């Protein structure tokens, strides 16, 4: 050994401790096995709200949002708005093809957007798509990043996208296999294929994961902590799914409005978060989470004394019925806890499986990292009229959100996290802040070059 060898080796035992693992470049190859709870009835992103992460595997949008909600180029290479923000031009990226090999043209893209937005005026002009709206829209790029605005080629009952994967096999409701596209404009995905089991309960998914049959499974929000404590690698999003109570109509009388207020003040969201959801959620005062707006703490929190006081001002209260998705175990425990809260405030609340209950417990994904777009999507899903924004200021966003809450049609409860248990063999797994997955960037350690 040379002179330098000994001191170097003496140092090495100390310095090796500084390295925790290898920063390995991505490997190509292999099949990723994934399970999910939903089994979408349709693969058309315009018709199905259940595609979830499948959407960006098969389809592209004109624009994407980065992790801070800023629009970035996807199928559109550039865009601009004319003064007034009513007429927008999106220049289409060249050389992109659908999975059937046909080119993505401004005509097909415009037809796709007309299908998903019947009230918009959309047409092609040269290599661009023109969108004309009835009123000024400053956040149209963010709106176009919504999965329902994916560019889809529709041919009879068949749909084709331009995404990084193409459908190789499909057994509706049970199983699908997606294969990587060599010619994807964003670069071929690292894995060769993804095999997805559809409609699997959380329990079945966990068993399959623990047996090593599945490498990626969904984890219910209330199971995140336990799954991690048991040694599984769990990747979760920011709290992005609104769980709320929704009334089908506006308050029918001043007493009805007061009862709704008393009920909202009785809800112990902190307990729901820490005990029922095991910190897999955040209490929600507003429709949008605080990490998105920065102001949601201003909305009223639980105040049982005030709830009882307001309740005492109502001569005759109504006993309400509450329904929830019977297939959702999280919703069941939350509904039971809410009934106890209502009772503490002197209000009657019966849980029912019926479809015409007085109020419903619902879960809605925010859908966008852009706060005004997310609020618009929530309003649409709740059946409310669309919020209008005079400007892009935070004040306008607050006013619009507060107006929806003041309607007393919706009582926000929690913002839930989306979580996945991921096998150690899956590398570069990214769950974005809004719960989206970029599986095309994931790779398998066992893959062959």
């Amino acid at each position, binding site marked *: *050994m*040379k002179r*330098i*060898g000994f*001191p*170097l*080796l003496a*140092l*090495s035992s*100390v*310095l*090796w401790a*500084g*390295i*925790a*693992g*290898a*920063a*390995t*470049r*991505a*490997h*190509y190859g292999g099949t990723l096995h994934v399970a999910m709870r939903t089994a979408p009835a349709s693969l058309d992103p315009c018709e199905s709200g259940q595609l979830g992460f499948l959407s960006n595997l098969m389809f592209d949008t004109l624009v994407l949002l*980065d*992790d*801070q*909600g*800023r629009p970035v180029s996807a199928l559109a290479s550039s865009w601009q708005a004319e003064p007034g923000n009513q007429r927008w031009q999106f220049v289409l990226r060249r*050389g992109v093809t659908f999975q059937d090999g046909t080119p993505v043209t401004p005509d097909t893209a415009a037809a796709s957007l007309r299908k998903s937005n019947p009230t918009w005026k959309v047409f092609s002009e040269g290599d661009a798509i023109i969108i004309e709206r009835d009123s000024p829209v400053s956040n149209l790029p963010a709106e176009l990043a919504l999965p329902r605005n994916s560019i889809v080629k529709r041919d009879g009952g068949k749909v084709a996208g331009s995404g990084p994967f193409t459908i190789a096999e499909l057994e509706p409701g049970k199983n699908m296999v997606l294969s990587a596209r*060599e*010619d*994807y*404009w*964003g*670069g*071929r*995905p*690292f894995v060769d294929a993804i095999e997805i089991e559809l409609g699997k309960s959380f329990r079945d998914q966990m068993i399959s994961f623990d047996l090593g049959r599945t490498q990626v499974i969904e984890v219910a929000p209330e199971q995140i902590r336990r799954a991690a404590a048991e040694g599984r690698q769990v990747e979760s999003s920011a709290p992005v799914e609104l769980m709320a109570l929704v009334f089908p109509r506006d308050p029918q009388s001043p007493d009805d409005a007061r009862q709704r207020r008393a009920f909202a003040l009785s809800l112990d969201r902190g307990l729901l978060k820490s005990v029922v959801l095991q910190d897999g959620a955040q209490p929600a005062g507003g429709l949008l989470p*605080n*990490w*998105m*707006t*920065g*102001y949601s*703490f*201003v909305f009223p929190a639980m105040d049982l004394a005030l709830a009882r006081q307001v309740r005492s001002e109502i001569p005759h209260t109504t006993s309400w019925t509450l329904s929830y998705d019977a297939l959702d175990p999280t919703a069941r425990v939350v509904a039971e806890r809410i009934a106890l809260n209502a009772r503490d405030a002197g209000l009657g609340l019966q849980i029912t499986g019926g479809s015409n209950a007085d109020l419903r417990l619902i879960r809605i994904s925010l859908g966008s*990292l852009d*706060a005004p777009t997310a609020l618009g999507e929530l309003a649409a899903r709740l059946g409310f009229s669309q919020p209008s924004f005079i400007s892009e*200021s*935070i*004040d306008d966003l*607050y006013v619009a959100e507060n107006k929806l809450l003041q309607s007393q049609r919706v009582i926000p409860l929690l913002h839930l996290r989306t979580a996945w248990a991921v096998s150690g063999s899956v590398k570069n797994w990214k769950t974005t*802040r809004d719960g989206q997955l970029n599986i*095309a*960037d994931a790779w398998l350690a066992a893959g062959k*070059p």
Partner: protein
Amino acid sequence: MPNVSENAVYNARIPHMRVPSPRFLAITFVVLCVLLCAPVRATDFRTPEEQLSRKIAAVTGPGALVVNIVNRSSVAQAEFEQIRRGVLNELALVGVRAVGAEQSAGAIEISLSENLREYVWVAEIHQGSNEVSIVMVTTPRPDSTVMPEHPATSVVIHKTLLWTDDNRILDVATVSTNPLRVAFLEPQGVMLVTLQSGHWQQEQSLPIEHLHPWPRDLRGRLILRKDHLFDAYLPGIFCRSTANVPLALSCFESDDPWPLAPGPGLSAFFTPNRNYFTGALSPGIEKQTTTKPFYSAAMLPRDKYKLWIFTGVDGQVHLLDGASDQTLPQSEWGSDIAGTQSACGTGWQVLVTGNRDKISETVQAFEVPDRELVPVSQSIEFGGHVTALWSEADGATAIAVAQNSQTGKYEAYRLSITCAQ
């Protein structure tokens, strides 16, 4: 041991330019460091302080109120105290005095909060039995600052931030020192920036056209040349610049091998639609013309031969010396390595990527005495994944590019080595 300045090759193509002396280069480096390493100044919050105070005063009018300010954001305590004082001063200027509860006609609860992109300052104003009035202002959040370096051990790696960009930076090359001019290779093309009056200014942007989609995990190299300014190597594409600024760039499809180390020597073929070298070498190491597919390579000169180190796609480290192909046991090395020359230790170190944790990657220096991988420095951390690590033309420094996990931006650093005290 070869002298660094004698081996420099990047100034010969400008005939009238003097060869810079080592002293000049050292001064330039120091100036560059001073310009680029200046501490980040604290954000100026005077504007939002003033705006919020005006909005509050528009609701309350002049008067005496209880003012409570809380921090719900990532603003540090010291900065929060400054903001608190600033807001109280601004409120006083618009006639709103902060007083105790017994003297007040109402209360203002100010929260320094934040969302995805901005700080959000919210004032909840309670006056009499009126409903709570809410006013708010926003102000941009600064990007995160550079991670600190670790203390020195055997050798010390220094990193100097050169450039930050939204686009992926594939490689960086200093194409001239007077004026200081740096080329950045990005997926869209080559960007040329010049240091003028202490500020970096974009001088030229040279697009790279390509028919086929770039592979994911795109890699590329910028190699300085003597008879023209540089060559750019990308998967399936080769580009050659002209000699003088303003430059032109001609690109064409090519599977020409990429140079693996500064100066003339070994090259290797890169897989056009993947992120690794095929293993075919040109012209070869003595008689060895192939090795396993690999991600990167570094050369360590020995007395009578050159030892080449390859980080294989199979996760193993391969040592080739022209006669033998030795596979070292599974190491904790990452995929990227770069050879550097210094006045420390054996005179040659290999910079190696590694993982500190899931979001922060590291670079550490190693030496390979007797074909053992021996770490000789502490790891330096990057605030995200290291996406490129290449030796620079002078052989004494390396370029590391990391994607900041907080900002998503690509940060190009120059890595240099000094001996530990």
